[in-house]
């Protein structure tokens, strides 16, 4: 008995195309593959002398960051610029306690300035959904990370990294290590890997950093790093926030590193050609040894490069889906008038 039972998926238009990009939940394997294929085709743009294509010329993309992030913000800016969009970036303080008025009013104001697309980063889970549903239904909303919930472009850039280095997902073992509980990246990665057909997804961490209900992602849980890393093809390390020690989730960074840090010796348990990924910024000596982060198996910097291409793909696809939906709406309105 919930009124949302028959609701159309918020992020798809009537033709099943992307019109917002809020989470990877409910997106088909075909759609995820289309994003990866499109991103692949955009990788070449970054190697040109003039790194631009005209797909979003005349469009305005607003990056609205309610939470600090240099890497994600910069790659979204570059992605929009390479698509020839006009780009505005706002870093908005979240210090207001006025029950969302800042968020609501800021977005309404930007909407009134006729922006075509918003990239939102916010500390509250569900913020991008809220904006897409209540504030900007006619403007494409891209989730640049919301609370612990989702970081879908990071998820897709991780998938592009895996596909480019491993060729596909069908025979892979992938391990995600560290703070799963607080990680939107882990949630998006688990969803994407499952949808794309990865048969062996493992998560590794102490019980304090693993959320309830992990079984829904179809993953195997390990508390022992050595056991979990055995023969994997891909290791995704997660960032550990310092405050986890104060919250009583861990005794110390030192103990975490001793138990779950990725060292050269530990990595040797994985397949010899395993790749090492990290969403960044990395904490050397906390999650990962420098020799591993800078080593031959690390693809951490490739992830950044792929991130721009993935964001170009998502921006262009969502804009196109939103435009198509507007046309469908205006056609149906004019038919009604006839």
């Amino acid at each position: 008995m919930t009124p949302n039972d028959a609701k159309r998926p918020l992020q798809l238009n009537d033709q099943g195309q992307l019109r917002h990009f809020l989470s990877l939940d409910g997106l088909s394997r075909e759609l995820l593959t289309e994003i990866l294929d499109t991103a692949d085709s955009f990788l070449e743009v970054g190697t040109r002398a003039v790194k631009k294509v005209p797909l979003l010329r005349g469009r305005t993309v607003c990056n609205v960051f309610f939470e600090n992030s240099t890497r994600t913000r910069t790659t979204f800016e570059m992605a929009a610029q390479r698509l020839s969009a006009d780009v505005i970036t706002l870093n908005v303080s979240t210090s207001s306690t006025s029950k969302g008025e800042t968020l609501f009013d800021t977005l309404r104001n930007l909407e009134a300035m006729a922006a075509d697309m918003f990239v939102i980063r916010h500390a509250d889970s569900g913020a991008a959904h809220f904006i897409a549903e209540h504030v900007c239904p006619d403007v494409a909303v891209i989730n640049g990370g919301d609370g612990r919930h989702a970081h879908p472009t990071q998820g897709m850039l991780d998938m592009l990294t895996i596909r480019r280095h491993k060729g596909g997902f069908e025979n892979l073992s992938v391990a995600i290590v560290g703070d799963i509980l607080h990680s939107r990246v882990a949630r998006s990665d688990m969803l994407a890997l499952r949808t794309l057909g990865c048969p062996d997804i493992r998560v590794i961490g102490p019980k304090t950093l693993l959320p309830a209900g992990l079984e829904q992602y179809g993953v195997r849980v390990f508390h022992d790093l050595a056991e979990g890393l055995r023969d994997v093809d891909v290791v995704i390390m997660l960032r550990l926030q310092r405050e986890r020690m104060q919250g009583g989730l861990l005794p110390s960074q030192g103990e975490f590193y001793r138990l779950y840090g990725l060292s050269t010796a530990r990595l040797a348990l994985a397949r010899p050609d395993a790749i090492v990924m990290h969403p960044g910024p990395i904490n050397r000596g906390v999650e990962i040894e420098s020799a591993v982060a800078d080593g031959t198996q690390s693809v951490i910097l490739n992830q950044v490069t792929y991130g721009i291409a993935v964001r170009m793909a998502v921006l262009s696809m969502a804009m196109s889906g939103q435009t198509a939906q507007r046309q469908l709406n205006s056609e149906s309105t004019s038919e009604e008038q006839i």
Partner: protein
Amino acid sequence: MRTRILGARVIDPASGLDQVADLYLADGRIAAVGQAPAAFEAEQTLDARGLIAAPGLVDLSAALREPGYSRKGSIASETRAAAAGGVTSLCCPPLTKPVLDTPAVAELILDRAREAGHTKVFPVGALTRELAGEQLAELVALRDTGCIAFGNGLASFASSRHLRRALEYAATFDLTVVFHSQDAALAEGGLAHEGPMANFLGLAGIPETAETVALARDLLLVEQTGVRAHFSQLSSARGAQMIAEAQARGLPVTADVALYQLILTDEALADFSSLYHVQPPLRSRADRDGLREAVRKGTIQAIASHHQPHEPDAKLAPFGATEPGISSVELLLPLALSLVQEGVLDLPTLLARLTSGPARALRLPVGALAAGAPADLVLFDPEAATLAGERWLSKGRNCPFIGHVLPGAVRYTLLDGRISYQA
């Protein structure tokens, strides 16, 4: 005013009566059920054939928002909404501004409720000053003003020692204490029931143990102090089981559940709709089923609305930034009847949990249809339907059921023999 109500199916859980009968009301009381008293001349006759007459509903928790939060609701608006939901008596929690910890605030609430005249209002006073969990409020003075029980909402106590002292003091004067058992530290920062749904949405979880750990402590202190205790807003199946065990041990313990907890589960959060943001949170399907069973058995004697109206802005934000609560008192009867429609409860049991059960739990002089009792009753059509939200009287429209077609429709609510709501 002398009123004759003809041909209703009269269901009075307090006396076990369930038959088609006429009702005779005089001077605000029930003069007779069945045969007219000698020389009874009705000034008003209500044709109630096809309707069910039951005691007016007794709601153990409906926030009226006054004083202090008039943007969310007023005593006049919310008691009027309550009457439309078939309610004739309601208890309002002490969560006002200023907090209901002085006789002055209690008097203000009682005066405004009398002026509005839609329902009877029984204030629940604060157990500690400003609900701070430290210094006791003047419980006896508050009782003498009209407070029928005392609670601290979800606010915690400075220590278990402070709680123990409060219970001992209340027990001295045979006062009833209303518990909202939740361990503040285990619930801290939480937004949703800790489980697969909260994890999937990335919402910080409130574990079931936030309720059960606190409940275990509270029950042990109730046993030690001998205070009369009512446990409000139970949300977990294990919690209901612990209440049953305490009752089996002979403790003077009653309990209520929010009606929406018997209908919804945490699965409703899937789209981040802030309408489902409540505290304690919507829990799992297994918890809901356990609560339903406890209501059926009578371990949980009362179903309450736990009505919390809000202004639109309070819900217009991402889930975690919104205020918890559902505005629901206006739909109390039709929503409750959906449990009968679903086969969860039979009608007399449901009405018992909405009338005599809550009245007995907090020792309120209402909730029965016997001769001499206050003529508080609801007449409803069990075959009709209510389109939720079609007429909306509460100031808060924060109700996820708006737009739903619910079974049954309240036709009349009578308070002290006078029509306080008519559809």
